[in-house]
């Protein structure tokens, strides 16, 4: 029995195993140009159209560091509550491959630009801190295309030299669920900072997943396997489940785990060996003599610190304090920067007499449902924050009922129409004139004398019948609260 609800354990006969996971996330730096050249980084261009002489490693070409990418890495480091190293060094990681034009990747090995930090995860049963080991800058390689021709491999160098941040976590993660929350949180922080767009489909965020297992309660780490280059959260989770179970089975059968690099086959849902430790590359890292050590001043770092926007954790705290949201509601609203922006705009546009609770319900309810069904992001919402704010105010001040509001909401989706206008044009304004409603109710009671008597004799269920009749007679526009009051009085 685990006291911790989200604890992820693998059980075999008498043994329970826990899973130890560490991630190396490769996040593409949001930047117009590459890490060491001025070529564009735009996604989806024709092959080999965004390649400079530097990217293609022509003789005599030299790398020149892109200052913007350095700033992005430092900002990300700040967002990860991490130590910024004022001196870092670019190293060459040497290996041969057709899509690696230089024959080495420029990376940071011994002296990364960002040191230790942490990320806070909101798990169902509380918060969990995950340690960050380091963050370093490196170049991406090009792309080898093997399936265009049976004889030849094609190489596209558009991606060659694009800046990546490798964010290495400590082995602090314990379940596929935590991995999912961790990736989402990293993505969220970087999107708040504008340092990585987090687009996993376009490969802006990929991870190498290190997995090991050990008997629950043991202090020693088991031998780990590294699953290379997994590009979706779902696949990461599947890969971890498969790999952890594979390792447990091996141990249960009395075998040992070989340290190796593995690949996740998304079709077969299994990991398989790519190379063993003995076959591991000797990358022959050494400081790149074409680049001087990267030195940044306190001033430079402080300037970047002062430009850091409010990040998800702080925003969440503020939403709870300022708007009295529950931690759960706050979490939903801050997890994505565009959602947070939308919510805050709705709040601002609602003006003085605002109903935050109502706004939260409408955003997380109706709006999210629409976005989900249309499979679009909130940034593409068919209803602007301003118009949603107007709609909520119409409910709040009694102009329309919540039920009518849903009809108005449907109509607003067609071209982001102003709800005020819809209400006027369609005559959907709520009837709140007590005299008119009294007349309407008098008529209903008159027409249904027998039921009125039955009600008075104690058949209280019939109250709903009269409410329904009144609403029907008003075309749904009657103020339900007033109807209730008048009916109670008259019956």
């Amino acid at each position, binding site marked *: 029995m685990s006291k911790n609800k989200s604890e992820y354990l693998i059980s075999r006969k008498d043994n329970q195993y826990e899973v130890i996971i560490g991630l190396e996330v490769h996040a593409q730096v949001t930047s117009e140009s590459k890490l060491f050249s001025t070529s564009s980084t735009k996604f989806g261009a024709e092959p080999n159209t965004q390649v400079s002489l530097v990217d293609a490693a022509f003789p005599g070409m030299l790398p*020149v560091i892109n200052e913007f990418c350095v700033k992005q890495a430092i900002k990300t480091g700040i967002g990860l509550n991490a130590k910024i190293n004022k001196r870092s060094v670019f190293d060459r990681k*040497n290996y*041969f491959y*057709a899509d690696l*034009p230089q*024959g080495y990747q420029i990376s940071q090995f011994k002296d990364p630009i960002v040191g230790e930090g942490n990320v806070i995860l909101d798990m169902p049963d509380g918060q969990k801190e995950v340690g960050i080991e380091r963050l370093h800058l490196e170049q991406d390689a090009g792309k080898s295309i093997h399936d265009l021709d049976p004889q030849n491999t094609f190489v596209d160098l558009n991606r060659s030299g694009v800046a990546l941040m490798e964010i290495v976590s400590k082995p602090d993660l314990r379940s596929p669920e935590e991995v999912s929350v961790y990736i989402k949180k990293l993505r969220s922080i970087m999107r708040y900072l504008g340092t990585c767009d987090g687009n996993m489909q376009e490969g802006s965020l990929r991870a190498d997943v290190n997995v090991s297992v050990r008997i629950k309660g043991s202090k020693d780490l088991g031998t780990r396997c590294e699953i290379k280059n997994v590009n979706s959260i779902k696949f990461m989770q599947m890969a971890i489940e498969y790999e952890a179970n594979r390792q447990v089975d091996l141990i249960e059968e009395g075998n040992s785990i070989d340290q190796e690099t593995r690949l996740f086959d998304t079709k077969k849902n299994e990991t398989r060996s790519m190379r063993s430790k003995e076959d591991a590359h000797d990358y022959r890292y*050494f400081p790149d*003599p074409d680049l001087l050590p990267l030195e940044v001043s306190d001033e430079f770092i402080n300037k970047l610190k002062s430009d850091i926007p409010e990040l998800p954790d702080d925003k969440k705290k503020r939403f709870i304090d300022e708007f009295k949201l529950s931690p759960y509601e706050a979490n939903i609203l801050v997890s994505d920067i565009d959602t947070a922006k939308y919510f805050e705009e709705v709040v601002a546009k609602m003006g003085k007499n605002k109903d935050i609770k109502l706004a939260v319900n409408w955003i997380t309810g109706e709006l999210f449902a629409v976005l989900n069904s249309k499979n679009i992001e909130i940034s593409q919402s068919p209803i602007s924050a301003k118009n949603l704010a107007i709609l909520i105010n119409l409910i709040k001040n009694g102009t329309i009922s919540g039920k009518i509001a849903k009809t108005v909401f449907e109509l607003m989706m067609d071209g982001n129409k102003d709800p005020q206008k819809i209400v006027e044009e369609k005559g959907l304004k709520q009837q709140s004139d007590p005299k008119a409603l009294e007349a309407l109710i008098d008529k209903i009671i008159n027409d249904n004398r027998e039921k009125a008597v039955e009600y008075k004799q104690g058949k209280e269920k019939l109250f709903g019948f009269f409410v329904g009749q009144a609403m029907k007679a008003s075309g749904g526009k009657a103020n339900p609260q007033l109807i209730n009051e008048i009916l109670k009085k008259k019956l």
Partner: protein
Amino acid sequence: MSDITKQSLSELVKNIKNKKVSSEEITKEFVNRSEKSKELNAYITEDYSSALDKAKKFDQKPNLDLKLPGIPIAVKDLFCTKDIQTTAGSKILNNFVPTYESTVTQNIWNEGAILLGKLNCDEFAMGSSNETSFFGNVQNPIDKNLVPGGSSGGSASAVAGQLTPITIGTDTGGSIRQPASFTGTVGLKPTYGSCSRYGIVAFASSLDQAGPMAQNVKDCALLQEVISTYDSKDSTSINFKRNEYSKELTNNIKNKKIGIPKEYRVDGMPKEIEDLWQKGINYAKDCGAEIIDISLPHTSYALPTYYIVAPAEASSNLARYDGVKYGFRAKGENLIDMYEKTRSEGFGAEVQRRIMIGTYVLSSGYYDAYYLKAQKVRKLIKNDFDEAYKKVDAILTPSTPSAAFKIGEKKDDPVSMYLNDIFTVPVNLAGLPGISIPAGHDSKGYPLGLQIIGKAFDEQNILNIAYAMEEKINFKNKITDWWIK
């Protein structure tokens, strides 16, 4: 004017400015002499007809305010030249035509110079005799079957043989100064960071430096003035105040303190080198300089350090020559096979040797013992110079431990070949400027050079010392034109 090719750069510039001679006339003379000098094998690529066209064009609208107005110049084939084949002396780059121009060559074209052709060199600048070039040996104009030194052997031969009035070479461990010394010419290796490395085929990035080679110190100063610019395209280029070296050149070196490092008196040093050095000391004294004995205690570690650092960087720098993108490609069964065949066939023996040394010293398990240790020793070598420069303004040494040797004499003995660089290598490791000037002859009549080493960015000072000593030495190069039939 039939003696055009015998004129120094300064004379040619003066004559062209005074309209005594046209760019076309000058260019024609150098082209003619170059064509008659094929036996020297100084050129890899000739660009004569295009040079003559450019010269004609220059004469139509001569801009005489330029520093190299209409002057034809051949350059080492390590500089990438736009639309002109650039080989680095290697089969692997045979037929490679860059679409871009190196900063250093662009600087000379901007001052009105005209490209004559690309000069032979050791493959990827790895060699001390120009015998590792895929394009064959270069002959020293001093004598038949004599090496011109290396790696800028074609450059030294072309200047000494008057195929080009001046040239630019590159120097990673002595590749300008040693061939200058072997051919009786002047060669300057500037401070690391003085000349941009952009567009120069890399050998060892932390050591490579382009520099001028000329018939005399003044020409050398003028060319240095042109090629040394700050360049944001090279992250190791340094933005310092650059002198107008030729204008500020002076032979007044009175009271300059010149250091004589005792550690350069190496075991087995030939007496004639010893004598030359003493002669140099006397000349310096004659010029009014003060001679001070100094110590550079880590000198003996310089050569082994160099032969770890340079191959390490080279092994990585040359990884890009893989047959995938440009240059030579051998057919292979698969990617790995193609790599292996391309690189085995495309690189010569010396380059392969250095790639293997470099790969070895960077390998895990050996990195600390070799590369890391070499970096530490390199720092100590630099510290030696820093200490010395608290006492002296410059240092005087022989350029090489011997005069030029015969082609083939040391080809199969890499260690004895490497020893050629014993006096020049520490300067590269410390990133300092060094100049070699011809100072005498050995018993066979072959030229011998003296090296003056300066403080970082103090090119002006060593040029001045060289200029003053040049006057006193009054060296005459013995060029017999033996190769011209």
